[in-house]
């Protein structure tokens, strides 16, 4: 248990560092100096000590509970990842994150956050390829436990080579949840900060912590499921590389309209479904 708590603290700080790297890379590509790498850590510490309250228009219980739920589900997801549990559970936690986005937006009573919440429902299109991803991973490895998948890869080949469309689907999920990304319609600038505009002070610090855990867990799952178990130092380097590649996409593409977001993700779902059917037919025959 102590080991998990230490890992939890490390994951929070490393996730915040990844967010800082994300902002820095975007800024440098766009020829701006950008904030230092550790800015998100400073932000979170600063918000933790700011005066905070609950807006009068907010649903009081929901406003607070949703923050705690966000931290709860990603702490649980990290635990499932650590014990090499089921990939389905990780994706179930990911689906619960949709409730967090929706609840955070609706609980405050602000029109900006409500728009963000409604857009989070539309962005559910990004989750469709995940179902095919799970199926393809199972078809190849015969298991859905993360430790089982890692064991299969150690004995055979990394899945990224033979299940590239499935890997791209999970990569797309990481991209769609990244700040300032082309799919980040739920926190677009015309909505101020989108679904979490009205969560400030300590609430924002806690949401920052939850989102840093989310980034850490999603990138870790991507690496273990599609590349395999790596030495810890190489694992951290690959995590940074994945984050930098996501930042590169965010820096060079405009934010899509909600319509285009759904369109691209639906087309990709079709491609991955086709790939899944081909794999299934080949495996059966």
């Amino acid at each position, binding site marked *: 248990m102590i080991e998990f708590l230490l890992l939890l603290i490390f994951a929070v700080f490393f996730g915040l560092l990844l967010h800082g790297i994300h*902002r820095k890379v*975007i*800024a440098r590509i*766009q020829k701006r100096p950008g904030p230092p790498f550790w800015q998100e850590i400073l932000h979170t510490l600063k918000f933790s000590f700011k005066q905070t309250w609950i807006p009068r228009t907010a649903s009081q219980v929901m406003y607070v509970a949703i923050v705690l739920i966000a931290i709860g589900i990603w702490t649980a997801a990290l635990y499932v990842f650590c014990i090499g549990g089921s990939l389905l559970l990780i994706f179930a936690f990911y689906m619960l994150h949709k409730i967090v986005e929706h609840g955070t937006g609706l609980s405050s009573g602000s029109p900006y956050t409500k728009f963000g919440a409604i857009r989070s429902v539309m962005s559910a299109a990004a989750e469709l390829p995940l179902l095919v991803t799970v199926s393809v991973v199972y078809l190849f490895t015969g298991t859905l436990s993360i430790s089982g998948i890692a064991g299969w890869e150690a004995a055979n*080949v*990394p899945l*990224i*080579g*033979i299940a*590239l469309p499935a890997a*791209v689907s999970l*990569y*797309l999920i990481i*991209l769609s949840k990244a700040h*300032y990304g*082309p799919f980040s319609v739920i926190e677009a*600038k015309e909505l101020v900060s989108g679904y979490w505009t009205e969560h400030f002070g300590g609430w924002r610090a806690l949401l920052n912590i939850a989102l840093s855990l989310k980034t850490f867990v999603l990138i870790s799952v991507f690496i273990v499921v599609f590349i395999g178990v790596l030495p810890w130092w190489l694992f951290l380097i690959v995590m940074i*590389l994945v984050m930098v*590649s*996501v930042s*590169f*996409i965010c*820096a*060079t*593409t*405009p*934010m*899509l309209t909600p319509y*285009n977001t759904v*369109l*691209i993700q639906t087309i990709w779902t079709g491609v991955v479904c086709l790939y899944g059917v081909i794999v299934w037919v080949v495996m059966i025959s």
Partner: protein
Amino acid sequence: MKKPAYILLAVLFACAAVISAVLADGNPYWVLLLIVSVPGFLISVILACTAGSKDGDIPFVGY
């Protein structure tokens, strides 16, 4: 660039990604091409979708 140019780029990056993924089993250095081609593919697809639209021609830089 025009929309067809972005679509062509997307197809090229997709081909590069598939080839590098297949060859990466034999020689891990092909992963380097994979790391470049997958984001390249996604960027091309996104820019193809937004090309010709009022806001989509120039990447949004005002973060």
